[in-house]
Structure formats: structure tokens, C-alpha cells
């Protein structure tokens, strides 16, 4: 079966000479809920940027459902939804406009967009805020808008780069419920997060990246099964100081 996402020997060197991704290979089957962990600057966001077209890979191969994400980028991008870490949004636009424009970019006609936007705006409790300017919203509401935007095209592969950073418990729960639901419905999800309990709760498979390389990969049970759980495995894999690691 064709994997939802296949990355082979991805390397990314920025123009400044910084090597952000040294050598990353990943194969995520369709329907997987995949946790992508690592410390700040490990290469998670750069890998995601290379998958989605925000960054140009220096070398290596990325395939989305078997489609080359560089050579056939338009076909590949139709299948992906990205919720980025930063709010890369026109601050003067309203949530409704932001989601609507994204739907338009993905080729959805007006009727399809309205139907989908109505659903997402309601699902993420944005109805009272849908006509406010984005800059007027609180951090949590902004996050909801960016999530709704990522999901407007009903993507088969959903990439969430720290989607719950800075949001309240309520939204976190709403989001967890929604992600679990769409994952059950067959959507593949790649999630990065610094909240390990979130990854433990949602993901079935985990990869830990450090200094641009995958340093540990396996099922959640394999990785979190040892003493100290996922946190301990994460600290060991990322080379944390021994006194930070449980039992040492």
C-alpha cells in the first residue's frame, strides 16, 4: 500500500549555510496518527516546510501518497493541509475571509466553500468572531482560525506544527476530539508538539528527531513502554543531561 508520506534522505541547508535537516527518512502509512518530536531547532518545522512547499529541499525525495512533492507539487499539495506554528495570516482579514480564500486556492467553488466554512466555523466555535479582523482575536481564537484554514480542503494528510501551543485546555480538548474523529475517518495526521502527554494520548507511532536526524522511531508502546515513559525515552534520545533522565 502506498504510504501517505514517504521521505527519503531529506537534507536541507539554508542559504546562510545552516544545516537544518541532515538526513531524515520517514514512511507514514495511510490512516496513521504520527507524532514527530524533537527539541527546538531539531529540524521538525523545516522538514514540514519541505513537505508542504514552504521550503525547497536541498536533496532527498518526498512523496505524498506516491506523488513527488517537488516535481508534481500541485497534485501533491491538493492532498495536504498545513497548520503552521506561526500565524502566517493577513491580520486585517476576517476569519471567514481567511478560510474562504484558502478554499478558493484549493479550487473549491463558492457552494463547496460555504458549506465547508460554515461547518468549520461552527466546529471551532468561531461564529461570534467570524467577522472580526484576525488581529483583534485572542491567541486561542487565532489558533482556531489557522486550524480551520488547514482543514478547509478536507485534506487526506494533515500536518499540524504545534497546533496547541498557547491554547487553553478547552480548545485543546476540542481539537483532540476532532483529530481523533477525522483520524478514525481515515485521515493521516502528522503532529509535532512539545506536550508529550498530547502525543501519548493521540499518536500510535512516534519519531524523535535531533540535530536534523531521526534518532528514535517506533510505535508509541515501544518507545513509551520503558521506565519513565515517553518523556524518559525522549530525553535519552535527544541526549539530555543524565540528571534530567528518570532513574539516572
Amino acid at each position: 500500500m502506498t504510504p501517505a508520506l514517504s521521505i527519503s534522505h531529506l537534507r536541507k541547508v539554508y542559504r546562510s549555510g545552516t544545516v537544518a535537516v541532515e538526513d531524515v527518512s520517514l514512511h507514514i502509512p495511510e490512516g496513521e496518527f504520527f507524532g514527530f518530536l524533537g527539541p527546538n531547532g531539531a529540524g521538525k518545522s523545516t522538514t514540514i516546510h519541505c513537505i508542504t512547499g514552504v521550503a525547497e529541499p536541498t536533496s532527498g525525495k518526498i512523496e505524498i501518497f506516491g506523488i513527488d512533492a517537488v516535481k508534481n507539487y500541485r497534485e501533491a499539495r491538493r492532498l495536504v493541509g498545513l497548520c503552521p506554528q506561526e500565524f502566517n495570516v493577513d491580520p486585517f482579514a476576517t476569519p471567514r475571509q481567511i478560510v474562504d480564500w484558502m478554499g478558493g486556492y484549493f479550487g473549491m467553488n463558492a457552494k463547496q466553500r460555504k458549506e465547508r466554512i460554515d461547518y468549520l466555523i461552527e466546529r471551532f466555535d468561531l461564529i461570534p468572531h467570524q467577522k472580526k479582523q484576525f488581529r483583534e482575536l485572542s491567541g486561542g481564537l487565532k489558533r482556531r482560525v489557522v486550524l480551520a484554514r488547514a482543514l478547509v480542503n478536507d485534506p487526506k494528510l494533515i500536518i499540524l506544527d504545534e497546533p496547541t501551543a498557547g491554547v487553553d485546555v478547552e480548545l485543546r480538548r476540542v481539537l483532540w476530539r476532532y483529530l481523533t474523529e477525522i483520524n478514525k475517518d481515515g485521515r493521516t495526521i502528522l503532529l509535532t508538539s512539545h506536550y508529550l502527554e498530547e502525543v501519548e494520548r493521540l499518536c500510535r507511532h512516534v519519531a524523535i528527531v535531533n540535530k536534523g536526524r531521526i534518532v528514535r522511531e517506533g510505535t508509541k508502546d515501544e518507545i513509551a513502554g520503558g521506565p519513565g515513559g515517553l518523556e524518559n525515552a525522549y530525553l535519552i534520545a535527544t541526549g539530555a543531561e543524565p540528571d534530567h533522565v528518570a532513574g539516572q
Partner: protein
Amino acid sequence: MWRGNKMNQPMGTNWIGLYTMMRREAQRMARIPIQAFVAPWISALLFIFIFGFVVGGRISQIGGHKYLEFVLPGILMMNIINAAFLQASTAVYFSRFIKFVEEMLVAPLSYVEMIIGSVSVVVVRATVTGIGILLMGMAFGATQIVSWPLFIFWVVSVSTVFGFLGIIIGLWSKSFEQLNMPVVFFLTPLSMVGGVFNTTAMLPDWLRWLAWANPFFYFINGIRGAMIGFDETPPGLGIGFTLVLLAVLGVWVWRLYSKGYGLRE
């Protein structure tokens, strides 16, 4: 229910995506009507007043035309150039600065679609600006259109040329200061000395070559020919030059997009 995941079907032109880019920029433009339209119209109105009623009466006719008739096409072209350049450069730079350009990068839009989407709004803004000035000129009995096809050609082609240049500057700029540099050092001076206020025959011999070397001269002279029939260049020279410029800049912009210059990390 929307299902956008049609696998393995090659994409044709993303017409809805293209239209969305235009719709989005039009909505952005609608947020700044004073900057986009009212400012150039007021400036043109002041030019009409000064050259029509203050200075114009003291200057004899040029090529059988009143001075205001001679000057107005140049004023119109200057405003088209400014509108086109500012629309393209600020739209591209602002989208990079705030990073919402990433919305387009992650979407199934080709580079050509992205470029057409940006440039078409540029042409719309420049055309609306130009038509406003044309109507003002007509209302004061100061202009006419000798050739509508040529008038449309000059409005569309010159706004596209400066749309491309605006995109290049918008991609290159790393600050608002850099974004404004071309306007201050090139656009305003070159358009002022590009034959808006005088014919080349009015210049001393040693200075004429400068007018002929100034690309703005061909744009101003071209639209003047379309509006009042006064043309100082051999037939086809300005059109040929503009078409070559369009092709060169079009390829340049496409290369920058396909390389991700200023867009992708």
C-alpha cells in the same frame, strides 16, 4: 460534502484559485481606496488645474494641441506606472513580511497562476486609475481618444511591465526603505524627464539622446499618440520595445518564482 482529494488526476488550470487571488487582492485594495484611487485622481486634478488654467494659457500650442491636451496623456501614464508598481510591490512585500504568502505556496497553484493572479489585479488597479483621469480630462474638454485599441494596449502593457517590476522589487526588498527606493530614484525622475511636459524637439540637441534612451519616453509618447494622435517616434518602435520588455520581465519573474527567490526558505 466537499471531497478535495481526487488522487492521481493531473490538474488543469486552477481557475478558481486564480480568481481567488484576484478577489483577495481586490478586497485588500478596497480597504485602501484613498491610497489606491483618490490620491492619484486628486493629483491629476491638480495637474489639470495648473497646466490647464495657470500655466497652459501662457504656452503656445504644441503640434497643434493645447498644452493641457499635450500634457494630460503623460500625467495619465505617470499615474498608471505608479499605481501598477505600488500595487505589485506592496502586495508581494506585505505578503512576504507577514508570511501569508505561504498560503499560496502550500496550495495547488502553479507559478504562472501566481504571477497572473498578481499581475491581473495590477492591471485592474492601473486601468481604474487611468479611466478616472481620462474621464476628468474629458470632463474638462482636455482630451480625446484617437485610437481605443492603442489606448488599451498602452494601459494594459505598461501596467503589466510595472507590475512585473513591482513583483521583482517586492521579492527583492528586505525592508520598507528598499521597497520605496525605486520610486524615489527611478520611477519619479525618469517619468518626469520622459517627455510628460515637453517634446524632444524642445530639448537641446546634446540632450535628445537622453530622452530616446529613457524607456518612459516610449510609454508616454505611445499613449499620447493613442489619445491625441501626437507621436514623436517611428511607427511600431514603442510597441516593439514594450513587447520585448514584457517578454524579458515576464521570463525573469517566472524564473524568480520557480526558484522560490524571496518566497521559499
